[in-house]
């Protein structure tokens, strides 16, 4: 799937799209993103009017509602030069689906959709591909072993996967190991998880078996929604393993207490 061509984001101010779930449930992950971006010398702002990318409505088939919320996104980010978001899924919504949500007949919203798609980056992608920084020159306070769960929209929607591995493998005291079926969906799928909970759970149990069998003590992923699904299942199954957002792992090396 061809994505709109994009200008280099180097030297530009970053508007953080923190996402609704990070805002309400994982605000510290948002702060980790800010810390890492500032660590590499990026100016960060937080457009205060932001809410959600509209994906829940879009995926449920409610296009009118999705258009309404997307237009709000355009307003909230109208001054943005570059948008960075700690979610492959929300980034894919903006980049893949916004251009489909509006047609040239819509006029300005269509232009806005194209623009938003062209300036939006997922967090790990922004660092590695946008800025060209895979080595953050950071070391974790103690040795840990990680494996990556490739969240679906990041991997297959945006072609990510390499960036988070690059970042972790350059992190001091971090060992990168394997997770079997790391590319297979965890079963979240947004409303899918509540519309078809038993199927979603069967997918989750397969993921949990693979996580428990992994040599990694921590699973790293780039989407808090998948993380919520997996940790919800791991916790229910009394597993000692947990899934952590990439930004929190990286920020731990800055000396915070977040991961």
């Amino acid at each position, binding site marked *: 799937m061809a994505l709109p061509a994009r200008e280099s984001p180097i030297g530009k101010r970053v508007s953080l799209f923190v996402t609704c779930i990070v805002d309400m*449930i994982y605000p510290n992950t948002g702060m980790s993103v800010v810390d890492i971006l500032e660590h590499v*010398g990026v100016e960060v702002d937080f457009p205060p009017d932001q809410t959600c990318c509209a994906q829940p409505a*879009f*995926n449920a088939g409610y296009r009118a509602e999705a258009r309404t919320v997307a237009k709000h996104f355009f307003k909230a980010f109208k001054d943005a030069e570059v948008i960075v978001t700690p979610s492959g899924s929300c980034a894919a919504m903006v980049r893949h689906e916004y251009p489909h949500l509006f047609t040239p007949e819509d006029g300005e919203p269509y232009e806005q959709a194209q623009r938003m798609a062209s300036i939006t980056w997922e967090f790990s992608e922004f660092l590695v591909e946008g800025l060209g920084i895979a080595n953050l*020159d950071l070391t974790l306070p103690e040795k840990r072993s990680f494996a990556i769960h490739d969240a679906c*929209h990041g991997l*297959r929607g945006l072609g990510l996967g390499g960036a988070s591995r690059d970042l972790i493998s350059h992190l001091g005291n971090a060992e990168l190991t394997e997770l079997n079926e790391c590319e297979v969906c965890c*079963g979240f*799928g947004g409303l899918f998880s509540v519309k078809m909970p*038993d199927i979603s759970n069967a997918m989750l149990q397969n993921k949990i078996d693979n996580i428990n069998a992994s040599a990694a003590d921590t699973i790293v992923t780039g989407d808090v929604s998948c993380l919520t699904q997996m940790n919800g299942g791991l916790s229910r199954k009394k597993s000692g393993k947990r899934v952590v957002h990439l930004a929190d792992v990286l920020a731990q090396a800055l000396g915070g207490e977040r991961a």
Partner: protein
Amino acid sequence: MTLEVQSNDFIALADIALHNDDLQHAIGEGTRTAYYRRLDTMFAHGDEHGEFMRQQAAEAKRRALRELPDLLEKAERNLKKNGYQVEWAEDAAQANQLVLDIARRHQAHTVTKSKSMLTEELGTNSAMEAAGLRVVETDLGEYIIQLAGETPSHIVGPVMHKTKAEIRDVFVRELDMAPTDNAEEMVAFARRMLRDDFLNADMGISGGNFLIAETGSIGLVMNEGNGRMCTSLPRVHIALIGIEKIVDTVEDYATLTQVLPSSSTGQKMTVYTNILNGPGRADEGDGPEQAYVILVDNGRSDIYATKYTEVLSCIRCGACQNACPVYRTMGGHAYGWVYGGPIGAVLTPLFVGLEKATPLPHASSLCGSCKQVCPVDIDLPRMLLDLRWDLVREGESQAGWDAAMKMWAIGMTSPARFALGGKAARAGQAIMGDYMPGPLGNWSKHRDFPDFAPKPFRQLWKERAPTLYPATKMREGLS
């Protein structure tokens, strides 16, 4: 009588599959084996080569679809030149009637069949049986399914949902096979049983993987050789082919006949790769005396020239089923009609009507694996999204969701209302604990829900000590 559509019972049917340990084991192993074999074969010459093959195959099918009306006429002309008698069927009833008429005309009693998903769609077997014909499926998987009185659960591996022990039990129960757990012995037994049918059949029925317009030929691939028996031994051969199976040139066929087995079983080529060109000629030692091609529409032209046209490119390889994490948990029967998995979730509503298959567009986490593995690059996730949109527009969405989505959109278009919603959620969680209201209650059935943060990010951001643009932090070695 075509197969009854049970797709609206998807969740109940899925539940049965989720509680069937044998099925879980068989489907889990069958899909994964095929998935990894596909990766090995498709990308044996590098990722770029594999991807290029996929795009070349996609374009061959897209081109054929763009020129569909012309190519069908061209195919008809060239089929006739080869000695085929060509018939057209608008729907299942017409197609089955044509088959029965041909059988009667040639006084056929025993019919051997090679594997055909189209005839599953049409219910051709039951139509023939009702007319007193003896029908024998000769693909091993289909043979087992027929004996068991079931339907295929997978496009390529119809019996994928059964374990070896279950297959043994079918042979013992239905054909008095001496019990054995040795797969080779079971296959040898089935081969002996089928031999007489191959030799005694009056009529053979096949599908067609491809219909090659420029030569008027049928491309037919198989691994067991049974299709050759069905199309060359009996006096009469009928090929039932969906109109979307058309390709223009032999060159296109050459591309597609590579990606089909690579994608479905991970073979570079099927064991038998055939191009059929009509009845046996006078100077040939075998071949049918009469050969028919029935070109079947059965809903295809209703899909043509809609936003779902691309789905007609499907070459029925089953790769999307093998890759789909939803299919992997339950197999194909839960989808309630002929086709399971992502392709079934799209094709079923389009063929039988959205109102008869309302859960299927939602039977996906939209993980994108189906599109990734599709040898003709069909954007199945996008079609599932479009079908969900159609559901909403046609008023087929689940009760409660319309109002919930309207409320949600109101909440999301104002940061103040958004923040208020967050506060309400926190307060709600404090009172209700892990119990969540409405459909969200389905979450806590299998998973714990995290606590809402005492302070949302927007508040942490406000309280944060103001930082100047930290350009000075940009250290050497980082850029």
